[in-house]
């Protein structure tokens, strides 16, 4: 590869690339989980009387 075309791997080994991809997926899932959690809590707190429920 020449200096004009960037190496998409950034010089990382296949294992490093795989770990980076897995980390990105994990971060994405975590952000999605937090978004869903806050959405659910918002619905619960906006619904009158719902907070009085006991587990």
């Amino acid at each position, binding site marked *: *590869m020449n*200096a004009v075309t960037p190496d998409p791997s*950034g*010089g990382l080994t296949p294992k490093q690339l795989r*770990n980076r991809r897995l*980390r990105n*997926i994990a971060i994405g899932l975590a952000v999605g989980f937090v978004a869903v959690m806050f959405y659910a*809590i918002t619905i619960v707190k906006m619904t009158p009387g719902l907070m*009085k429920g006991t*587990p």
Partner: protein
Amino acid sequence: MSLATDNSAFSPAAAELAYLAGPREFFSLLKPRVMSLVVLTALAGILIAPHGVHPVVGFAALTAIAIGAGASGALNMWWDADIDARMARTRLRAVPSGLIAPREALGFGLTLSLLSVLTLALIANLLAAALLAFTIFYYVVIYTMWLKRLTPQNIVIGGAAGALPPIVGCAAASGGVSWDSIWLFAIIFMWTPPHFWALALVKARDYERVGVPMMPNAKGPDRTRLEILVYSLLLAPLGLVPWFTGVGGWLYGAAALVLGLGFCLYAARVYQVRDGVDANKRAMALFGFSIVYLFALFGLLVIEHGFGLLARWGL
């Protein structure tokens, strides 16, 4: 040749370190086994709170508490990487083994600490968030950075951090701290020294080599065995308090009685045999039993309250 190798500021070693770890290694920074205990004890705190909480809010609060506890574990591993690298039990952890750079562990821990405290403040209340922040501060600064390498009482005083989750859970659910949650705090606080010293008896040489003054290498194994026995004798009746106060039902009471007696028996066996392979075996047996003890007691509290057994059975 890639652009990366043309860049003089680029360090292949740094890149190797930066991307070597996957999600599994980062998850290990959270000390999942400790976190599972935090989840259980915090859940008990949520369920015994005087005012009930909606399950969604309870689940979110529990998640925030668990992440906060995990974050303090990551910060502990960042600070202790130097001694972890020289101890057989901890040398394969992600930071000392080079899978995660110390600055990554620090950033990971700080980020999760901040997010967990903010989340708890938003979804529950400021008291719970402040208590979680204090728990993280206590574990990382008071225990890890200050006491651990200073005094053989490190586990006794530092154990308060591990005992706080039921109080945080109770505060998250009800906005206040109940006496019931304080009793649960006291049980974990009294349980921590015999639990950890049983392991330290076997790993005393490791601690001595790295200069951490654990009770067995600072005060001697005999003194440690005596203190284990004393703490166990105090713990057994303390475990019965939630039954007397009505927080625990008959299931809990029976288990606390039997397991409390078992705890004392295991501690007495450790006290009796002081040399050889059998001494180590007895210490590890106590260590294993202590985990069963705490999981069983808090698990039964969760079952009794979570499934409404107290009300349903009139216990």
